[in-house]
């Protein structure tokens, strides 16, 4: 059972996950951000590996990536940071990066490092199902790594069923046809989509992301999924208030 599945055993409602880009706003902030998020009751954390060409990300995360890269962030630095906090940190971590980073680092070397950091779950937005099945499934299995699939309002039911079968843990349910950070409220159309997925009674947990930015959208998303992921809104908060603003940000999301 992976770290996220263990989490689900303890808690499977109103899960809050927060995304941040490693190396933003400063190179050495990773440990502090993770510790602040964890101590303020975030259930699991997505660590973004900054990438030069993040196709699935909107302007806010793009900006954080380019700042992080300018700060000198790279895979070796982030792995070192994560490894050093491994024994202290109790909040499950999920790594999010683009497939080219994995290929270039060396697929086996990458997987080994992930495991060495105590991480067992990855999200790779540009890794399609067919590539997973033909190659990455076996690779990840070798290291005990779980891949998170995304579904969107356009994903056909049959494909969702297949993704559900391949999933160990949760499905990342993209709330709208958008890149990250877009829009900002939940429409009736989205509710219809949430209802449709809910009625499919999938075995996997559903974590909703894209466009979740405040207590209203978080609460709404939690009515339909097991929890939600917030990315751009937290990056904006980091940009404005720094790491110090983390507690206040998390509280505002939880409506405390």
């Amino acid at each position, binding site marked *: 059972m992976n770290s996220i599945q263990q989490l689900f055993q303890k808690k499977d409602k109103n899960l809050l996950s927060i995304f941040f880009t490693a190396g933003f706003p400063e190179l050495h902030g990773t440990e502090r951000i993770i510790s602040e998020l964890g101590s303020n009751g975030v259930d699991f954390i997505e660590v973004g590996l900054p990438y030069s060409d993040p*196709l699935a990300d909107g302007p806010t995360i793009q900006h954080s990536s380019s700042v992080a890269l300018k700060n000198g962030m790279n895979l070796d630095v982030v792995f070192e940071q994560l490894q050093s906090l491994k024994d202290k940190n109790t909040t499950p971590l999920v790594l999010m990066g683009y497939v*080219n980073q994995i290929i270039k680092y060396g697929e086996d070397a990458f997987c080994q490092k992930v495991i060495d950091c105590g991480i067992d779950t990855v999200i790779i937005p540009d890794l399609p199902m067919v590539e997973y099945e033909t190659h990455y499934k076996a690779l990840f299995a070798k290291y005990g790594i779980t891949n998170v699939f995304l579904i969107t309002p356009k994903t056909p039911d049959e494909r969702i069923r297949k993704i559900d079968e391949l999933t160990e843990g949760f499905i990342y349910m993209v709330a709208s046809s958008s890149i990250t950070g877009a829009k900002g409220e939940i429409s009736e159309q989205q509710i219809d989509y949430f209802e449709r997925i809910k009625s499919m009674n999938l075995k996997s947990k559903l974590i909703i992301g894209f466009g979740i930015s405040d207590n209203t959208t978080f609460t709404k998303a939690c009515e339909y999924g097991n929890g939600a992921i917030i990315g751009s809104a937290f990056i904006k908060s980091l940009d404005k208030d720094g790491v110090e603003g983390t507690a206040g940000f998390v509280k505002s999301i939880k409506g405390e």
Partner: protein
Amino acid sequence: MKYNPDKNGYYGEFGGAFIPELLYPNVKELEDNYIEIIESESFQKEYKALLKDYVGRPSPLYYANRLSEKYGAHIYLKREDLNHTGAHKVNNTVGQILIAKRLGKTQIIAETGAGQHGVATATVCALMNVECIVFMGEKDIERQAPNVARMKMLGAKVVPATSGSKTLKDATNEAIRYWIQNPETFYLIGSVVGPHPHPDMVARLQAIISEEMKWQLKEKTGKENPDTIIACVGGGSNAAGAFYHYLEDVEVELIAVEAAGLGVNSGESAATSQLGEVGVIHGSKTILMQDEYGQIAEPYSISAGLDYPGVGPLHAFLFDSKRAKFMNATDSEALQAAFELTRLEGIIPALESAHAFAVLPKLELQSDQVVVINLSGRGDKDLQTYIKYLEE
């Protein structure tokens, strides 16, 4: 054939469709339909009629007398520069707009580097009365002003890409991001790049170049096959078109010329095959320029159309399998070649195409060797650069 992609869109180890899930239905729709559409009688009839009467095809195959004399070989130029809108790009846009129409699409987006593909896209959108948005790097908007004006006159909206190096790579990123947010739109991609089936679709539409070369050479030389074909490669669409019907004819030497910028090892270059490694860019596994952590490099070339850190997956395969020979030319070699062609033949080539001519002095040509150079575009858009060079 060996050079067609397999069912997952791979040429050897290159290709595939590394796309976010949001794009899956759209790409799948195209994948399920493109071959059937392209091979249908109604498409072929409409496509060929437009190529003939609108684009002005067949483009001539011209025996370059003085150039041949200078280099001691029989050099023919495939005159894609004479196409409507001034380059080979229109072969692809005419084809894709007809595919888009058959798929019921009402909005077209495109990326552009030098602006040639943007103009060719805006042109067919005007022709077919379809909304058109072109993404173009901010830096390219500055250095290709005439093409920006053309696109606007044709009714297209030109959106500047302000991320990264502000060139073709970033324009492509922005186009893909827009596509993700608006999955109903048709992404009219300009080269043999992107997720499968885009590289194959574009190659099939540009294949008209080598289809014509076969009968034109037969008429002029008695043989369908030349000894050598030379084409410049950025993403690689004109080269794909010029090579396409000769890929299986291994006795035909294929030479792809990349832009070396200030020199292959100068740090300011776009010679992808020399500097790149295997990776994924714009949805396709190919060879690309990147740093040790897989961050995509910012390439450089004087030519906006070759300023791209990857090559199409077909070309990566041709390079890897050694079916094509990859050479390169620097900015200054390309400029010299452009002036040489202009003075010898009275033809001002596009800077991109000039790179193909720039390798002539590096080849050991035989007196009976038949060489075809794909003259992919004309130089009107590059006059500013040429004038500056003249003054220096």
